């Protein structure tokens, strides 16, 4: 790891100014630092200044309310918060499924949204690729079993965040300070990967995510299909929000994680689910099969085509029975 300067400002404004200061090359923000540390150790990132946000004196950064979570709140705090578990179980489940208890105890909500891809080629310094500004994608002809089922653009990465698809599905947004705007819709937080495959977010230097906002959804569910149940990223994850009239799905919104470079909304599934009874297993299965429309599997990702409809269906059933066994 390269030497770097470290500072822990007491206010968000100070942090923001430091992040745009010309005194240091490549200043970077840190909360839990889980992903940042990995990137710095591998030499993928060589910040001249690490700005630690954990000492900022602002309780709102940690506060968890129905429909709003401070950007610094830990994944553990979110997954344990009754207000989230009851008002939007999908969010509590998504945060509680990430990584390990130790990681969740320090990893933040904003950090989870803004973490970098887990692509093992991107994560290794010796590989060049389009996402690093070079040529080609070594995963395409290489080992891509954890890569995209729905590639968009030249990079085969999948979005690594458990939380981002949930917020997208709930018409979420992020509160930002330090720039010329105060809010960014979740749908716009990441640039279109077919046009900009290098950026994790549209945030400008100095912009800090202070909170996430979303419409609470008691009938919401999350399912991660992981190879390992301890400390693993999902092979595929499913998200569902239901508007129920008794047993009948009045309307549904579903989303897939870990299959594309950004969270993938599934309008075809949503349309097929409308009007279906949650007790009609066959109709729900059929509806969820629409989740693989447009899939472009590579030899190593073909199995995700089998997994995706399962993840979506299980998420739908979890949304229909919040608090029940998923």
């Amino acid at each position: 790891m390269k030497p770097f300067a470290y500072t822990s400002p007491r206010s968000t404004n100070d942090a923001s100014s430091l992040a745009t200061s010309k005194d240091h090359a490549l200043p970077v923000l840190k909360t839990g630092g889980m992903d940042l540390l990995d990137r710095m150790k591998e030499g993928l990132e060589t910040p001249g200044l690490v700005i630690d946000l954990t000492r900022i004196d602002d309780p709102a950064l940690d506060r968890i309310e129905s429909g709003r979570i401070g950007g610094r709140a830990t994944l553990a705090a979110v997954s344990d918060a009754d207000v989230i578990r009851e008002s939007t179980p999908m969010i509590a489940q998504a945060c509680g499924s990430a990584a390990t208890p130790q990681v969740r105890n320090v990893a933040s909500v904003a950090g989870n949204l803004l973490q970098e891809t887990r692509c093992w080629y991107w994560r290794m310094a010796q590989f060049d690729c389009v996402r690093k500004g070079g040529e080609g994608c070594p995963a395409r002809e290489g080992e891509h079993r954890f890569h995209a089922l729905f590639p968009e653009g030249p990079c085969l990465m999948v979005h690594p965040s458990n939380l981002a698809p949930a917020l997208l599905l709930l018409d979420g947004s992020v509160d930002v300070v330090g720039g010329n705007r105060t809010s960014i819709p979740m749908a716009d937080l990441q640039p279109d990967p077919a046009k900009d495959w290098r950026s994790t977010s549209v945030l400008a230097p100095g912009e800090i995510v202070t909170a996430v906002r979303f419409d609470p959804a008691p009938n919401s569910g999350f399912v991660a299909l992981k190879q390992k149940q301890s400390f693993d990223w999902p092979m595929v994850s499913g998200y569902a929000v239901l508007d129920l009239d008794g047993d009948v799905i009045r309307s549904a919104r579903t989303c897939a994680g870990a299959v594309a470079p950004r969270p993938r909304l599934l309008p075809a599934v949503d349309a097929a689910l409308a009007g279906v009874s949650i007790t009609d297993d066959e109709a729900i299965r059929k509806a969820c099969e629409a989740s693989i429309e447009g899939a472009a599997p590579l030899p190593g990702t073909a199995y995700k085509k089998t997994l995706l409809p399962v993840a979506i269906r299980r998420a739908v059933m979890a949304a229909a029975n919040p608090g029940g066994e998923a």
Partner: protein
Amino acid sequence: MSGSNPDHRTINAGESLADDATRLDGLAKATGDARYSRDHLRDDMRWVRLIRCPWGKATLESLDRDAALAVPGVTEVVISGDAGDYDGDSIGYIVAENRRALERGLDALDARWARAACKTGILDDERARAPIGAPEGDAADAIDASDFTFEATYSTPVQTHSSLETHGMMIEPDGEGAIVHASTQGTFLVADQIGRFLGKRRSRIVVDCEYIGGGFGSKFQIGKEGAAAGLAAKSSGVPVYSFCDRREEHLDTGNRPSLLCKIKLGHDADGTIRGARIETLGGTGVSSRGGGARIPSGRFDLGAVDGQNHQNVQFNAGGPRAMRAPGCPQGAFVEELMLDEVAHRCGLDPLALRRRLDGSERRGEMYDVAARLIGWSDRPDTGSQDGPMRTGYGIATCDWGKGRAPAKIEVVVHPDGHLEVRTGTQDIGTGQRTAMGAVVAERIGVPLANISVAIGDSRLPSGPASGGSVCTPSTAPAAMAAADLARDRILADVAERDGLDVTTLRIDDGIVKSGDRSIVRWEDACKRLPEPISVMGEFNARPNAYWGDGSSEGVQAARVEVDCETGQVFVREVVAIQSCGLPLVRKPAESQIIGGVIQGASYALFEEQVLDPATGAVLNANFENYKILGAKDCPKIVPVLWRDGQTGVRALGEPPVIPTAAAIANAVFNAIGRPVRDLPLRPDRILAALAEPVPERVAAATTTKTEVRA
């Protein structure tokens, strides 16, 4: 249902020499007080790091040695090669006064590499794709004469040892001599090896390895990181510190080699196997040795076997080293799954088939206990289930040989009644320290609290390296002999002073007794000593009263659930029965079995080294992508210590890792009705298997000769 079996503490109560002793070093390890070799840091030491090739095959185009030497704090750059044959191959090393200078120096070197074409696994070799050869000798006739033939190909991946404490050493030169803090499973081997690099006499070298954070067979040799440390210490004359980082640990400190195994066998309708041809290809990376697999194991009657068909396959990756039961888990996986496939074809319970083909009486009894504890009677017919979640049961076996090595143990009795047990042999994590203390305590008749154990230091009496599971079987007899000598000295002294017949004396819980009459407390008897007494117990590796006769045997049974919609395998329970002669201390003995099962389950489900096919770079040289079993993936484990009436000690370290993956693979076959012949049992492979038809049963129909290709 199963899962209601008794707690293993109840099962194992009374089976060990010391039932309730806890690890002497448990608290030190849990609190961090234990000082591992890697923990030996000094402000004035120098840091050593190897310069490594980042690709499967590459030549060095340029390297700026002067720039590296110009970095303040960099003291030495030694370049000894200009090409690499695998990711992690080394071409030299760099030495610096601190870690930061070391890393800046490596950056300044700015090594540029030109990649060349490389091979990345057994499957890159055309021998892997060739069909199995024609059986030869008696096997050819036997297969010909069988009712049915069966052919299949199996494979296992490269598994890395993944020691938590990485390989390396810290060397403190001291005039003519040196103290070497090595992370090693062979205290005395390191003492022998390091002198050449240090340029010092063996007699002046002290190796210290009081604690070691894992080795599993990969830490017998000093390695390149140790050789570089030795050379750097020699040239600088100051302390040096050379430990691999996590990535290097995965790349260049050995592994369990991959295996591809082709089998053709002939069997009859009743499951009798008349003969087999077995071909194995061992993936040895750049090494030309060490790829063998133990198949056939000899545990089962496979008729006439044409089995001397092993070849090593070289490719561009780090070579293998011994890994916990070398060659055995991979061999067991193939052989035991093959047996279950034959059983399925013949419509037989695989347990019944094993009883027929397995000649071991002891395992015969173990099968009964394993079946009872796992709930074998609930086992569904293979291929009979539908529905998303399917349950399966599988069973597999192991045995382990009779190796022994010379060992010495010194026991010192101090006048305050405390005893010191002294042995240079290291404790690789087996509980060696506790076992030696417990043997002496039990043998003499004093509480374990009276005893301290000095271990892992080449100045102490010599003993074996931790390999071949010979360590405890060899040191325990020496400890018993030493304890007997110490006890007899004290009792002789008591007899003389008190005018008693020494043959009537014994020591019971710290009291010297004659018959039922208490004579003197142990401490008081020791107080009379004019000076500490020191005795040496020796074991010469020949059978004696403390010898654990025969081989260690085991049976494991697994219960799994398979999610057939997702291909995920959940191992719910493993019953692991293991004989080991006399178990010394219950908890660490059970822990050996539990650890074996965990490592075996991890091998079954997750572990595999992944190489980029184009460049040979290892894509998962870290604990994120090199997946090892975590807490939520861990089954309930029921370790059963199988006491067979012996007073001697036998192997326990290696055998429990042998059958686990095989038992799990068989349980998965039982659950989903199709064999998965490639480890690890990944979801994509389970799903692919489920897309295949259930293999047909051949035997029930007819006994006419039929050729069925699997």
